C-alpha cells in the first residue's frame, strides 16, 4: 500500500457517504418536523416543567375548553373542547360542565367526570406538590354528577373560576389512580400515557426526538390532517436556524431576533411574529440602599435609552415596556405615560437626591460613597447580557458605575432567593390571568416570594386585596389601573421591553394560525404541502 493510499481511501469514503442524494432530509408531507430547544421533561403533565412541555402535552391530553387569544380588549373567552357546554350557578359558587359524548382515551375508555374528579385530587395534593397547585385554592369540591357531568364548587365568587378549572390538565383516572402519588416522581410515564387530544405518543428517544401520531380516538371528523409530528431536540439555537435553512426542520417555535433577517431572506421560510406575553426588566433590591430611594430609581430609568436597546439588542423585535401589565392585555392601563429618556433630567433628579460628582472622578457620590452597583444577569442568556452592557453604557454617561456580573442560572436563583443582589435583569412570562399579587404584594422577610426586590406599598397591598375580592372583571379593572399607576410611580423595576416570539416555519405549512395562546392553536387544520 502506497503512503498516499489512505488519503485516497478516506476521500472515496467521504464521497460515497456524502452522495448527491443529499443531506436535505426529504421529510414526507405527512410528517411535520418541529425543532425543540430542550427535551420533554415528563410525559405526566403534573411533573412537566416549562411552557414548551405544556405546548406538547396539550396535544396529547384533553382540556375542557380552549382559551382564545382575544385578551387584548377583554379577558380571554373560551371555546368548547372536551366540555360541550358549561354553566355557572346563580350564586356564582359552582360551575357545571357537560362533557362530549364521543370523547375517549386512546385505550377506548370514555373520558368521564371521574377523570376530572381524580385530576382535581392530583392538582390539590400536597404530596405531589404540583407547581400550579394554587389554582385549586378556591375549589372546595369536585363532584361527578353523572358519567358526563361534573360540578366544581368554590369558596367564593371570582372571575377566573373557568380559567382555573381549565388550567388543570386532565389525566386518566382508570389508568393512573392505582399508582400512589408518592411514586409519581419516579415513574416512567411514557408507557402509561393515554391520549384524548389530537395526537398520541409514538416514540421518544431521549435528547433526540419525540414522535406523535394522530390519535385515532380523536372525535370523528375532528382529527388532525397531519398524521405525524416529530419534535427534534436541537439545543443549539444556531443549529436550529441551520436546520430550518437545510430543510430538515419545518417549524421552530422560538428563534432569536438576531436570526430574523437571515430567515426572512431565505426562500421557503416564513416568519410569524407576535407579542409573547413576557417582559424584561431590571429588578432593584429595595431592601438595600440606595435603591430604597424612588427618586434614584426613576432617575436611572430616565437615563436608559430603551428605544436604542430595542434596536440594538432585539433587532427591533420588542416593544417598550411601560408597567407591570403587558400592553397587549385587556387590563393594561392605557393612560400610563412612558418614563422619558432624558439623561439631563435624570442627572438633576440624582442631584436632588444628593448624588453629585464632588471629587471630580466622573462618578457621582454621596457621603463619600460612589454611586456604583452590580447588575446581574444569567450567563445562559446572551440577550440579557447585552441588555446589561447597554445599561452599563447609558448609566456611565450620567456618572453611575455599573459592574456587569454574569452568573450561571442556579447561582443567580440562589442569590435572588436570598436577596443577595443590588439589581438583576429578569424576564417574566405573564399568564392571561392577571395576578399581580404574586410579584407585587409585600412579603415578610424570609418568606419565599417572586417579589425578589421586596417591594412594599400598603396602598398596593390594599388594592390587591380588593382585586381578589372583586366579583367580576369590570370591578377589577379600575383597581388594576390604580395599582399600575402606583407601581409605575414607585419604579421598583426598571421596565425595559415587552418581548416578541418569532416562530419560523416552512412555507409548505398551510392553514396555521400561530398565536400567543399556543403555536399549535389550530393544529388540527394544519397541512403540509408536498
Amino acid at each position: 500500500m502506497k503512503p498516499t493510499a489512505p488519503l485516497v481511501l478516506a476521500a472515496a469514503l467521504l464521497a460515497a457517504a456524502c452522495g448527491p442524494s443529499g443531506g436535505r432530509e426529504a421529510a414526507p408531507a405527512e410528517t411535520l418536523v418541529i425543532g425543540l430547544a430542550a427535551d420533554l421533561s415528563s410525559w405526566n403533565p403534573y411533573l412537566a416543567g416549562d411552557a414548551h412541555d405544556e405546548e406538547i402535552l396539550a396535544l396529547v391530553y384533553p382540556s375542557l375548553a380552549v382559551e382564545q387569544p382575544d385578551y387584548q380588549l377583554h379577558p380571554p373567552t373560551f371555546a368548547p373542547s372536551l366540555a360541550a357546554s358549561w354553566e355557572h350557578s346563580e350564586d356564582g359558587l359552582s360551575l357545571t360542565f357537560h362533557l362530549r359524548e364521543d370523547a375517549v382515551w386512546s385505550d377506548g375508555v370514555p373520558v368521564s367526570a371521574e377523570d376530572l374528579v381524580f385530576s382535581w385530587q392530583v392538582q390539590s395534593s400536597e404530596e405531589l406538590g404540583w407547581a400550579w397547585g394554587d389554582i385549586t385554592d378556591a375549589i372546595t369540591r369536585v363532584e361527578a354528577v353523572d358519567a358526563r357531568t361534573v360540578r366544581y364548587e368554590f369558596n367564593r365568587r371570582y372571575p377566573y373560576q373557568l380559567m382555573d378549572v381549565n388550567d388543570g390538565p386532565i389525566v386518566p383516572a382508570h389508568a393512573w389512580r392505582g399508582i400512589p402519588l408518592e411514586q409519581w416522581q419516579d415513574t416512567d410515564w411514557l408507557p402509561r400515557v393515554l391520549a384524548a387530544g389530537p395526537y398520541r405518543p409514538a416514540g421518544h428517544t431521549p435528547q433526540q426526538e419525540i414522535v406523535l401520531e394522530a390519535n385515532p380516538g380523536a372525535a370523528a371528523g375532528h382529527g388532525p390532517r397531519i398524521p405525524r409530528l416529530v419534535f427534534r431536540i436541537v439545543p443549539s439555537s444556531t443549529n436550529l436556524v441551520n436546520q430550518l435553512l437545510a430543510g430538515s426542520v419545518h417549524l421552530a417555535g422560538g428563534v432569536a431576533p438576531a436570526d430574523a433577517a437571515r430567515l426572512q431572506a431565505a426562500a421557503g421560510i416564513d416568519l410569524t411574529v407576535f407579542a409573547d406575553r413576557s417582559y424584561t426588566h431590571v429588578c432593584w433590591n429595595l431592601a438595600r440602599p440606595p435603591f430604597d430611594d424612588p427618586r434614584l430609581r426613576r432617575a436611572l430609568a430616565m437615563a436608559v435609552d430603551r428605544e436604542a436597546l430595542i434596536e440594538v439588542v432585539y433587532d427591533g423585535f420588542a416593544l417598550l415596556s411601560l408597567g407591570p401589565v403587558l400592553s397587549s392585555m385587556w387590563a393594561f392601563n392605557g393612560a400610563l405615560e412612558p418614563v422619558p429618556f432624558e439623561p439631563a433630567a435624570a442627572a438633576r433628579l440624582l442631584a436632588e437626591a444628593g448624588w453629585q460628582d464632588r471629587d471630580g472622578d466622573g462618578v457621582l457620590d454621596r457621603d463619600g460613597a460612589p454611586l456604583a452597583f452590580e447588575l446581574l444577569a444569567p450567563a445562559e442568556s446572551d440577550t440579557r447580557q447585552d441588555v446589561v452592557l447597554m445599561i452599563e453604557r447609558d448609566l456611565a454617561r450620567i456618572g453611575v458605575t455599573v459592574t456587569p456580573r454574569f452568573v450561571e442560572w442556579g447561582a443567580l436563583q440562589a442569590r435572588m432567593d436570598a436577596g443577595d443582589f443590588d439589581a438583576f435583569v429578569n424576564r417574566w412570562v405573564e399568564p392571561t390571568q392577571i395576578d399581580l399579587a404574586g410579584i407585587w404584594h409585600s412579603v415578610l422577610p424570609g418568606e419565599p416570594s417572586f417579589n425578589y426586590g421586596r417591594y412594599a406599598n400598603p396602598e398596593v397591598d390594599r388594592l390587591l386585596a380588593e382585586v381578589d375580592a372583586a366579583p367580576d372583571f369590570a370591578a377589577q379593572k379600575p383597581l388594576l389601573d390604580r395599582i399600575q399607576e402606583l407601581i409605575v410611580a414607585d419604579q421598583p423595576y426598571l421596565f425595559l421591553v415587552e418581548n416578541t416570539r418569532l416562530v419560523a416555519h416552512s412555507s409548505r405549512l398551510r392553514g396555521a394560525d400561530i398565536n400567543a395562546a399556543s403555536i399549535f392553536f389550530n393544529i388540527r387544520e394544519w397541512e403540509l404541502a408536498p
Partner: protein
Amino acid sequence: MLALVPLVWLVLTLSFVVLQAAPGTYADAIDNPRLSPAGRAAARSHFGLDRPPLAQYGSWLKAALSGDLGTSFMYRKPVARVIAEALPPTMVLGGAGLAITLGLGLALALASTRRPHGWADRVISVLSLGVSGVPSFWLAGMLILVFSIGLGWLPPSHMRSTDAAGLGAVSRAIDAARHLLLPALCLGLVGAAGTARYLRAALLDVRASRYLLAARARGLSESRLLWVHALRPALLPVVTLIGLSLPILVSGSVVVETVFSWPGMGQVAFNAARARDVPLVLGATLVGAVAVILGNLVADLLYAVVDPRARRPS
C-alpha cells in the same frame, strides 16, 4: 487495580464537595413560591434535600457501594439508566472521532514524510497547524455551513433521519453513517492535525536514524522500511494521545454534542452540573474517572506492545 478504588472515591468525594460549595442547589429550582410550605417541604424531602449534606453524601456512598447510583433529580430516572442511554451514542461518536484522529493523522503524516519539505508536506503542515488552533464550535459551524446548507450533502444534526425507522437495514446503516460523519469529523479533525504533526516529526527522526540506514543498506524495500521498521517506534507519541483520548470516548464533548444535537454524556453531565443534579453529576464523574484510569492503563499496555524496551524488567 484495587489501589485505584481510593482514587475514584477521592474524585467523587471532591466532586460532591465542589457541588455543595457551588452557589445554588436543586432545591432552589423546585422551591416554588406558589406552593404551600408543606408542598415545598414535600418536594425537598422527596429528593432528600431536607437532610444535611453529610447525610446526603453518606446515603449516596452507601447505595453506590451496593451498585445503586441513585435517581437523577432532573430526569427522574435511575442514574444508571440515564448513563446507559447516553453512553452508547457518545462511544459511537468518540470511536468514530478517534478513528479519524488516528486514521487521517496517520495518512497525513505518511503523505507528509514521503517527500519531506515537498509541496504536499508544506500544504499538510500549514493545514494541520491551522486546524489545530480552530475551536470546535467554529469548525462545527463551518462544516454544517458547507456540507449541510451549502452543498446539501450531509444532515446538520441528530443520529438518524426522521423516517429512519421505516428504512431497510442497509439504508438505515448508511443513514446513521451520514449523520455520524460531520460530528465525527468535527471531533476528529483537530486531533488528526495534532497526530499528523507528532507522527511526522517522529517519522522524520526515525528515518534519520542509523538503524534504518543500515536496514536500507541491506536492500529492504521502502514499504517494508516504513511499515515494519519506521512506523512502530514512531507511534510512541501517538500511544500517549490514544491514552489521553480514551476518556472522551465515554465522557463526550459538550460542544460537539450540543451543536450536532447528539444525545451523549457531554450534554448529560453539563446539564446535570447546571441543574445541581448531584446523583447524576457523581454518576457521570464516576464514569469519567474510571475512563481516565483505564485510558492510562491502556496507554501503558500499548507502550509495551509498541516499545519492547517497556517490556524489559527493570
